[in-house]
């Protein structure tokens, strides 16, 4: 493990942890379910991408220097996990937001709500 690889891994881990913790903070700061979905799903996606990238860089360097195939396997598994995370995160966020809107949860402080206008229902006062 050289110093350059170590720095890269450390950098990716720090960026990932920074965005993950911002996701947690956004749960407290944002007013309603939709804005919280922005914070929670987006920051954790970006954070998890960077922590996954750190694992991939670490394992690939271990594989290239030591030649143990279990590190290559770990890198491939992490890559699969990242791809699956991207797809399921988007789909899950969309499903939760749609279910919330169908359960008549109004977006708080919203300046415009075209979906409610289309469905012809009056918005409650925020």
């Amino acid at each position, binding site marked *: 493990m050289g110093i350059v690889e170590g720095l890269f891994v450390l950098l990716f881990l720090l960026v990932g942890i920074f*965005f993950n913790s*911002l996701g947690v*903070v*956004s749960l407290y*700061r*944002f007013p*309603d379910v*939709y*804005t919280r*979905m*922005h*914070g929670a*799903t*987006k*920051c954790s*996606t*970006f954070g998890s991408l960077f922590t996954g990238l750190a694992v991939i860089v670490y394992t690939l360097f271990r594989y290239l220097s030591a030649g*143990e*195939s*279990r590190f*290559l*396997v770990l890198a*491939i*598994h992490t890559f*699969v996990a990242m791809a699956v995370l*991207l*797809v399921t*995160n*988007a*789909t899950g*966020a*969309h499903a939760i*937001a*749609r279910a919330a*809107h169908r359960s008549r949860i109004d*977006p*708080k*402080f*919203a*300046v*415009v*709500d*075209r*979906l*409610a206008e*289309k469905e012809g229902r009056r918005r409650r006062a925020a």
Partner: protein
Amino acid sequence: MFIFFASFLMYLLLVWSGGTIAPVEFAVAFLLATILALAARTWVPSYRFSFLKILNPLRWISFLYYVFVPFGIALFKANIDVAIRVITGNIRPGIVKLTPDLKSDLSRMILADSITLTPGTLTVDVDDEGAFYVHWIYVRDENPSEEEIYGSFASWARRLAD
């Protein structure tokens, strides 16, 4: 059949640990893939879904280019933007309507997933006419242009899957 082979190969990829795979794993993979394929047998691909289109390598290359270059750059910028909004609390949310005029289900899915993955925008609903209802964390314009919400994503989705 597609689901069977995809889940069979995926299981083998996940249990592979560098060396040869034990024969019992093939049996387990066969069993699980059969169960999955039977459970999903009523899944009918949409009418524009064709294997010739999906297997075209040019499409895969342009898809990878899309994921890493235009989408990656937008993802990066938007993440920084939302990170600042989390810290400062400067939000002006709202649900806006967009009509990107995409025909196939696959291209609509690509666009909706791209919008949702980009921080600050979240697809709430897509109706049968292909109108997107997007929750936007900072509404600059109540009738926004497509460019403002997702840049070039719609033309990419059209090129990739429409």
